């Protein structure tokens, strides 16, 4: 889709200002119902679009995403723009700098339409924990778009952005992509710099593209990836152009499947997965059964390591340097802590009491517990050892196969409110996606059509997981499915 729009721009069939205006029109028409956006940056967007049009009229060459409208998840900083991470504690936060990914897409000339909704600080699986209200699934407004990048997924799905950026810590790009019928990629840990992304669980977090097509995902990945001195975990990618690897040819490639995953599915999802497998067989891929014996421990492992990192990362939101500060002038009922003057302690306690939501508090407390004296070995250290075992499962599997095919989610989009009462039910949403974050490997969700579910037609997706730093083969396999989808 990006390439088509690019060609229209250079052939002067449409101007960037017209294109940008079309998207803002779509937003004003649809976003009242969907609520994908938290902040619109119309003035800046039109200004950038005008610059691109001037360049085109001067006969200058433009880049592939130059002048094309996109949306950015609201936990990624854009200089001088409000960035809330959907939390009340950052209600008044104006980012003083650009995230590295934003700097890169600015250099590439993208038009940024605005900031999209997410679960508060990217904790959740439905966008329902946002302090600014839930985003709705464009296919059915009574259902969730998934989360945490629900706003970014819904914006692309409902044609309110050509592409968007999300972030993925346990499935936050892939699960909403699947619920909204778009493509979503979590790159290899280290592929994309996180500088300027609000740190949540630093050993898992990755930024990635959400798009209409696999080619668009490859184009965006080529632009945002690479080593960055501002993120010590980022890795060099030697200027790879991922779109050049999309040959449509996958003959002889080996695709691994996990039998227990397929057997665990309901009838409708299982039928879809079987169709996907058949299509890959027709395309000449070899389907091989593989085993990931420790993958069943991925979810409990995640729910020790992730909250532990959360409790540490979110300690910075204390009402001191930025964000909201609260003081209710009443003594808070907590256990006594020595060594801190009461007035200062009350500032911390009240600021976090009134400005953080329930899910964020729950995870901070879970992590604080897991890391606290006497429990560290039993929880955190054990989980990091199990993590090693899960990584080894993948190392072994990838000696046999090129990519691994799984469902993205156990079901299509669920109803708003359906899982908010029981945190564990919500956590189980990530059962198929979370292993890729635990192992640090890249994984993409690809739409595979609509299924009938609870009397509605809803999108379904499947997931492909690839080897570390092998996005080119991963996307090649995803692309081959997509371009042969209509045959």
């Amino acid at each position, binding site marked *: 889709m990006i390439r088509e729009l690019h060609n229209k721009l250079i052939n002067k069939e449409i101007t960037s200002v017209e294109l940008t205006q079309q998207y803002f029109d779509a937003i004003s028409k649809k976003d009242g119902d969907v609520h994908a956006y938290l902040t619109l940056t119309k003035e800046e967007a039109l200004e950038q679009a005008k610059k691109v049009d001037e360049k085109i009229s001067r006969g200058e060459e433009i880049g592939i995403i130059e002048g094309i409208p996109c949306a950015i998840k609201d936990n990624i900083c854009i200089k*001088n723009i409000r960035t809330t991470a959907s939390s009340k504690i950052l209600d*008044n*936060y*104006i980012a*003083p*700098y650009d995230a590295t990914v934003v700097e890169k897409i600015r250099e590439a000339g993208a038009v940024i339409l605005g900031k999209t909704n997410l679960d508060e600080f990217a904790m959740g699986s439905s966008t329902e924990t946002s302090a600014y209200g839930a985003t709705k699934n464009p296919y059915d407004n009574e259902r969730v778009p998934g989360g945490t990048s629900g706003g970014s997924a819904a914006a692309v799905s409902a044609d309110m952005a050509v592409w968007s950026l999300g972030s993925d810590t346990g499935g936050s790009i892939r699960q909403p992509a699947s619920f909204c019928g778009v493509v979503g990629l979590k790159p*290899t*840990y*280290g592929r994309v710099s996180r500088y300027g992304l609000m740190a949540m669980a630093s*050993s898992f977090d990755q930024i990635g593209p959400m798009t209409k097509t696999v080619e668009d995902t490859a184009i965006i990945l080529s632009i945002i990836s690479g080593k960055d001195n501002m993120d*010590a*975990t980022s890795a060099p990618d030697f200027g790879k152009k991922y779109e050049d690897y999309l040959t449509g040819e996958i003959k002889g490639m080996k695709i691994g499947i996990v039998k227990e995953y397929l057997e665990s599915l309901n009838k409708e999802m299982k039928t879809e997965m079987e169709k996907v497998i058949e299509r890959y067989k027709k395309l000449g891929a070899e389907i091989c059964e593989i085993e990931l014996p420790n993958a069943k*421990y991925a*979810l*409990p492992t995640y*729910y020790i390591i992730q909250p532990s990192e959360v*409790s540490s990362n979110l300690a910075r939101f204390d*009402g*001191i*340097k*930025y*964000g909201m*500060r609260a003081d209710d002038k009443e003594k808070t*009922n*907590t*256990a*006594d*802590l020595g060594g801190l*003057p009461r*007035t*200062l302690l009350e*500032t*911390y*306690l*009240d600021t*976090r*009491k009134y400005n*953080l939501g*329930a899910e964020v*508090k*729950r995870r*901070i*407390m*879970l992590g*604080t*517990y897991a890391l*606290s004296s006497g429990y560290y070995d039993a929880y955190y250290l*054990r989980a*990091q*050892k*199990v*993590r*090693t*075992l899960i*990584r080894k499962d993948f190392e072994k599997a990838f000696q046999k196969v090129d990519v691994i095919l799984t469902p993205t989610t156990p079901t299509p989009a669920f109803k708003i409110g359906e899982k908010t009462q029981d*945190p*564990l039910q919500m*956590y189980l949403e990530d059962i198929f996606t979370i292993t890729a974050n635990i192992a640090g490997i890249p994984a993409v969700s690809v739409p595979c059509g609509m299924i009938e579910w609870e009397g509605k037609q809803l999108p379904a997706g499947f997931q492909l997981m690839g080897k*570390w*730093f092998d996005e080119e083969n991963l996307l090649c396999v995803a692309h081959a499915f997509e371009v042969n989808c209509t045959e």
Partner: protein
Amino acid sequence: MISEKEVKHIASLARIGLSEDEIEKFSKDLSSILDFIEQLKEVDISGIEPTAHITGLQNKLREDKIENFENKEGIVKLFPEEKNGYDKVKSVL
């Protein structure tokens, strides 16, 4: 089982004030999540190294060079309470 007393202790460590309702709810929630996590106890982890960095990246060094941040104003504007360009906080002594 996480008692309400333990919830209060954890909340203090995490610097989170909680309402009485929250204390009761978190006692239940944390207990059920920890029960779910219990299954890790069945994994044999003897002789297994913990993961330190998932892709094995080590000691990434860069030059220790001071760079001026160009938008100091933008930072000062974010202070919850500002006095003469400084961030004003409650007494720490």
